[in-house]
């Protein structure tokens, strides 16, 4: 078994138009920039993107949006001070937004990976983001029913990966990677370093290889 991919191009080659793609990262930490660049080059369009943010500046998801590849984004915080691509298209009605509180976003992604059909969460109860959603009082507390969020692809960034797909992350760049890896049919991990089978401490592996289909090494950019 060898999940190491020969190139970024190969790692994203089969993404079809209309695919749902999870993209890891919080702010710029943990964003798989090179996979996103490869996806832009590959050309898939009409994508639904599930991610915490909508990209900063003109890089990452912001670049994907600027190239008009995204028809819908599911995220908690699309607004970024220095990014205009999303704002323009959103205000013009050219991109759909499904705004999800950050914790519900993470838990809905986890639910998809964990085979949970739906769950009751206290977050957003009584707010506009729960409008029209089923609610229930359980043991004196109010909850909103939320459903899983799954994807065709998850593009994530990890620190080290092995040929079995086992991954470890680095500091707060871990963020959404581990849950997204569980929730997509095809998880592609961009890693800073590929290591051999057995080189990762089995007690410290964060994402077991079963969740990962492809691993591509991308050395960090030199400043």
């Amino acid at each position, binding site marked *: *078994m060898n999940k190491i991919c020969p190139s970024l191009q190969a790692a994203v080659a089969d993404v079809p138009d209309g695919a749902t793609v999870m993209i890891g990262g919080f702010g710029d930490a943990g964003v798989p920039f090179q996979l996103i660049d490869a996806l832009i080059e590959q050309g898939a369009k009409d994508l639904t993107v599930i991610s915490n943010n909508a990209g900063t500046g003109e890089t990452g998801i912001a670049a994907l949006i600027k190239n008009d590849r995204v028809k819908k984004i599911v995220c908690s915080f699309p607004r970024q001070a220095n990014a205009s691509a999303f704002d323009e298209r959103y205000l013009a009605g050219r991109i759909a937004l499904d705004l999800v509180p950050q914790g519900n976003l993470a838990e809905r992604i*986890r639910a*998809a*990976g*964990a*085979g*949970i059909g739906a769950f009751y969460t206290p977050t957003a109860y009584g707010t506009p983001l729960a409008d029209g959603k089923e609610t229930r009082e359980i043991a004196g507390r109010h909850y909103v029913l939320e459903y899983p969020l799954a994807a065709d692809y998850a593009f994530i960034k990890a620190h080290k990966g*092995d*040929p*079995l797909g*086992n991954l470890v992350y680095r500091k707060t760049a871990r963020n959404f990677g581990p849950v997204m890896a*569980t929730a997509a049919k095809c998880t592609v991990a961009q890693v800073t370093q590929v290591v051999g*089978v*057995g080189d*990762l401490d*089995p*007690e410290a*592996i964060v994402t*077991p*290889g*079963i*969740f990962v289909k492809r691993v591509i090494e991308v050395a960090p950019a030199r400043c």
Partner: protein
Amino acid sequence: MNQDIKLLSRRDIAARIAADIPDGAYVNLGIGAPTEVANCLPDGVTIILHTENGLLGMGPSPPKGDEDEDLINAGKQFVTALPGAAYFHHADSFAMMRGGHLDYCVLGAYEVSVRGDLANWHTGANDAIPAVGGAMDLAIGAKSVFVMMDLLTKKGASKLVERCTSPLTGVACVKRVYTDHATFDITPEGVAARDLADGLSLAALQEICGVRLTGG
């Protein structure tokens, strides 16, 4: 029993299952007979074993004297961890199963119905102390759930049945049943028997198990 029929041994059944599992598959082998499947893999085929108590990449039993009390399988037997293994906690482990990430799960059974209902956790006897363990999670815990069993009980009754009489473990969850008499595919169109034991006809098999079969 017709003396010309050569029923499969447990090892033969395990070999049939092993032959149907592709290289690189993620597999959970239930307690008991299913563990034999790991010993029957063809040359060049590697599968990655999951044990629901928190290990992916489970290896064989350790040499005597090398047992580690912190390294056991779901049957509470000492095992080893192969290079590339990963440990995780119980909620993550069962999320892995429930989420459909395992390719195959191989289980024993008291009964399997023609629509794939599984009964393997409780005989239904009133005086039994109930215990379910991970049986119900395993029953729905893989893309393909295989059952490995003898077709008949010790009293000669078919365990492939129209409708289970023992308490269910899972509903419509079994995809294929490997037995000493034949292999049965549970399909929306019915049960297809194939790979019949030498000397066993489809008609004879149908008489033995008493449920409607189609040829494989």
